[in-house]
């Protein structure tokens, strides 16, 4: 089961880290926009 846990860990760890990076970058950049220009909200 060691290899199985390693595979799941790598997959979900990498996806979690990438998701966090995208979300944080989006938060940082959207602060530069006035609220009325955040058209998706």
């Amino acid at each position: 089961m060691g290899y199985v846990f390693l595979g799941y860990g790598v997959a979900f760890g990498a996806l979690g880290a990438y998701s966090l990076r995208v979300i944080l970058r989006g938060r940082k950049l959207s602060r530069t926009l006035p609220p009325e220009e955040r058209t998706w909200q």
Partner: protein
Amino acid sequence: MTGTGNRTTRLLGLGALVTTAAVVYLGLVTTPPDVVQGDLVRNIYVHPAVATMAYVAFGVTALASLLYLIPRTRSMRWDSLAGASAEVGVVLCAITLAIGSIWGRAAWGVWWTWDARLTLTALLCALFVGYLALRRTGGTAEARAIRCAIAGILFSGVVPIDHYATEWWRTLHQGDTLETLHPLIHGAQLWTMLLSFLSFGLLYAWLVIHRYRVEQLENRLEHEGLAYALAARRAEAATEGHDAAAPASVGGSA
């Protein structure tokens, strides 16, 4: 509220989180080990779905690139979507290679072999890393978008070759586990695998929407940053011109 989320992304994110948790629980706890592979079969609840979503991501890049190249539908939005989907695809493709390698070490005894499927997947990943590098090259936004659209379409041509590699060549990699009419697995294993496709599909959609909005924000920042830098340079040049002209006029009058 800051960020790139809205109601749709929150629903997608929640759906992805719940289905992913279910896949992990079903995959690691409730599904039975395989008679041949033992516990290693649990890899199929992650690996094929991630690989398929990488293909989908590169397919979306190709489609958005094509729509950018057609004059009637040309819009920078298609370029942003192509870039966003390619980046998510590279992450998914790298994960596919990593977990495939871990499974290969346990099942075949080697981390890597120059098998057709593995080599083509690595090539696909490398090509799209190159595509992402191309997106950061200089020139006008339009010229860069055209370059990237052509590259995106060309590079995506590897996807069908990679997919059919196990049928066209004798490979170590196993063929399709899920055939349309005669799946090789049944019961809890089949449903868990199907759920994994739904889970990673939702995750892909959630990630692409966020990344697309980040891409648009970055483009805007780059555009405004350039406009600000040009205005500052013009102001600086005007000041320098004024300063240079002032002593000459003083000297002339003397």
